[in-house]
């Protein structure tokens, strides 16, 4: 995907390191210390996101252009409380700092970010970082807040105690960052001695000893903790109130969905129309021929079928970003925990699963806030069962064609609405049952408990929100885009070979015929078979394929397509088809993202097999049930 920043690639230095010369700087800090804000400040849009090899921990790398040192590379390490390898994050941090991470150069200097509002605890991390004896600059973040709230600390004494320079900064305001440039300039010159081992550090690995060490330093530096923000307590009194809390939570959730569907949907539709008409225009330039068909019907339409979800996906990322940056996400997890634990997950899974009602892609990417790996994987595996918006076109088509609009409760709630609601419920129940199944078998919870830190409320900044949306959007386009492109090209070839054949005569048509015996028990014919094959790229593609097969343009001849379907399928087969779509994993984008987030093909393969099997059995049961009930 082309964007403003892909031209500038980040080079990992290959020449041997000269001692004392700095090329690579590591950014370290505990969670909620403002480390990401600082990273974004220092690197701006020029950052590269990838997974560390072999693990699911994300690596952010960028050039230090924010302080005019584009020659230096900054590596953002995961937020950690200590270097003891309790978590995958900590192991990654240790490996990177020791230069043992393949593909990541050994850092020559460390920027350690500590939240100056809670220096007591944050100093515990300093002990383990300083014991590495790398040139380290200690950054006391949010020092502006600390001072306005009456906190103080003697930075000179702190620097002496730690044997490392200390600077007060504010990452959100961008103040005090000169100190970083100074530090790096000084350390870039050769012959600057590294920290010697004279420093008195606590016993490695002993939390109590770390703690005593940190307390000693706080006392000697006359650290006075600032008053905690009145705001946070006051807001929590309301937002976590026994009665108002859940109500406000519900209000937040409904607002998010209202906006995603009432603004996101029309945006997506408009964007889709734009892409299609652009495709047609380009097509007329190319003339008629197989190249035009490959480029327009294959590549362009395939990519457009993914791109149309971009507005919705970006909007969801924006909301998740606002919830996370403001600190409300942790409160939502606290409120939802009781419900989520009954299905074996924890409260942090709630917002991701909820987002999956719009699209599983941002939902799966949002599971990164779940620290427990097993819980996180379980959430990733059940998310695609939630009724996403790509299922709606086929649901609406089949319901309109087969379900009479008889009122059940007055005019508000009819048969059609009831079927639609049942389909939503069906996906939800499948997610629930699958979560329980996973948590009692392959993803049984380890001893890791659910620990939730409630950060102070903050006003999200436009800067960090837009960077986040941009960054997540880029990951989605890169991951889903490349796979979608190949899948759509393969599908186009299969449906156009041999040349000058119609769809039923093509390879894909033959496969459709060939699998007919397998899908006939579900009440499907070969046309539905072709539709199912073509929708492996994306669920909504089936509507267009059926339109082509039945010789009707779904956009203009929707009624014609409905009539043709009624003529060709039984009620059992039609309902079996929507049930199939409720369960089946007909979404290449999701598979691509699951692969990225779990860092292995094993999980998406398992997910695809499980969901397809479930879809088959459920569709078969639906067809048999309806056929026997109505005959």
């Amino acid at each position, binding site marked *: 995907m082309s964007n403003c920043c892909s031209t500038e690639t980040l080079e990992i230095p290959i020449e041997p390191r000269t001692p004392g010369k700095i090329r690579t700087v590591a950014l370290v800090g505990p969670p909620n210390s403002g480390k990401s804000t600082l990273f974004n400040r220092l690197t701006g849009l020029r950052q590269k996101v990838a997974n560390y090899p072999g693990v699911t921990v994300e690596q952010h790398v960028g050039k230090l252009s924010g302080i005019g040192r584009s020659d230096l590379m900054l590596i953002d390490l995961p937020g950690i409380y200590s270097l003891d390898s309790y978590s995958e994050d900590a192991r990654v941090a240790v490996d990177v700092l020791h230069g043992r991470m393949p593909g990541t150069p050994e850092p020559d200097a460390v920027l350690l970010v500590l939240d100056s509002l*809670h220096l007591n*605890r944050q100093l515990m991390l300093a002990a383990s970082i300083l014991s590495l004896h790398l040139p380290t600059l200690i950054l006391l973040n949010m020092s502006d807040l600390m001072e306005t709230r009456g906190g103080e600390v003697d930075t000179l004494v702190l620097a002496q105690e730690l044997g490392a320079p200390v600077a007060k900064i504010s990452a959100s305001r961008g103040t005090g960052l000169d100190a970083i440039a100074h530090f790096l300039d000084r350390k870039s010159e050769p012959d600057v001695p590294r920290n010697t081992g004279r420093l008195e550090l606590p016993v490695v690995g002993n*939390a109590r000893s770390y703690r005593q060490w940190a307390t000693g330093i706080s006392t000697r530096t006359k650290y006075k*903790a600032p008053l905690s923000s009145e705001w*946070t307590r006051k807001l929590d009194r309301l937002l*976590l109130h026994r009665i108002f809390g859940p109500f406000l939570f519900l209000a937040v959730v409904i607002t998010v969905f209202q906006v995603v569907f009432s603004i996101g949907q029309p945006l997506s539709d408009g964007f889709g129309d734009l892409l299609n008409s652009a495709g047609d225009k380009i097509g007329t330039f190319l003339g008629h021929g197989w190249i035009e068909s490959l480029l327009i019907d294959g590549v362009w339409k395939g990519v457009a079928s993914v791109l149309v979800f971009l507005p919705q996906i970006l909007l969801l990322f924006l909301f998740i970003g606002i919830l996370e940056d403001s600190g409300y996400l942790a409160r939502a997890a606290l409120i939802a925990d009781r419900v989520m634990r009954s299905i074996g997950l924890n409260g942090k899974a709630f917002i991701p699963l909820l987002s999956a009602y719009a699209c599983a892609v941002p939902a799966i990417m949002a599971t990164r806030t779940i620290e427990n790996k097993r819980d996180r994987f379980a959430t990733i595996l059940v998310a695609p069962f939630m009724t996403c918006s790509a299922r709606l076109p086929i649901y609406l088509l089949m319901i309109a064609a087969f379900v009479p609009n008889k009122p059940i409760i007055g005019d508000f709630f009819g048969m059609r609405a009831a079927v639609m609601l049942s389909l939503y419920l069906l996906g939800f129940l499948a997610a629930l049952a699958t979560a329980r199944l996973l948590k009692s078998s392959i993803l049984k919870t380890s001893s890791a408990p*659910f620990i*939730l830190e409630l950060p102070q409320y903050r006003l999200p900044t436009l800067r960090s929100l837009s960077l986040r949306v941009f960054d997540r959007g880029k990951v989605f386009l890169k991951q889903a885009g490349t796979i979608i492109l190949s899948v759509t090209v393969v599908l186009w070839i299969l449906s156009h070979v041999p040349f000058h054949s119609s769809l039923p005569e093509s390879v894909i048509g033959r496969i459709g015929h060939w699998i007919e015996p397998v899908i006939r028990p579900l009440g499907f014919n070969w046309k539905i078979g072709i539709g199912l094959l073509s929708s492996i790229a994306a669920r909504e593609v089936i509507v267009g394929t059926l339109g082509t097969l039945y010789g009707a343009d779904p956009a203009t001849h929707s009624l014609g397509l409905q009539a043709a379907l009624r003529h060709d399928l039984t009620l059992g087969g039609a309902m079996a088809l929507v049930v199939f779509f409720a369960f089946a994993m007909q979404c290449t984008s999701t598979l691509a993202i699951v692969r990225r987030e779990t860092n292995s093909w094993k999980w998406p393969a398992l997910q695809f097999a499980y969901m397809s099997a479930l879809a088959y059995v459920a569709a078969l049961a639906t067809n048999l049930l309806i056929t026997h009930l109505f005959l």
Partner: protein
Amino acid sequence: MSFVDTLDLPDEVGHHLMHMGFVPDARVVVIRRAPAGDPTVYAVDGFEIALRRETAQSIKVRPVEEGS
């Protein structure tokens, strides 16, 4: 209000909790319970941390004595 006494948890978990502030002799205050009654939010070391009952039960505390 009470003081943390011992952590009756597997080493790894105990360790993690200690790094989050639940070290012996740290002062712990119950702030509030989640609307559903569980988890509970505790203030420790200037931070607010929520724990489920099952985890909190493994952290033994002693009350703050009168006058101390």
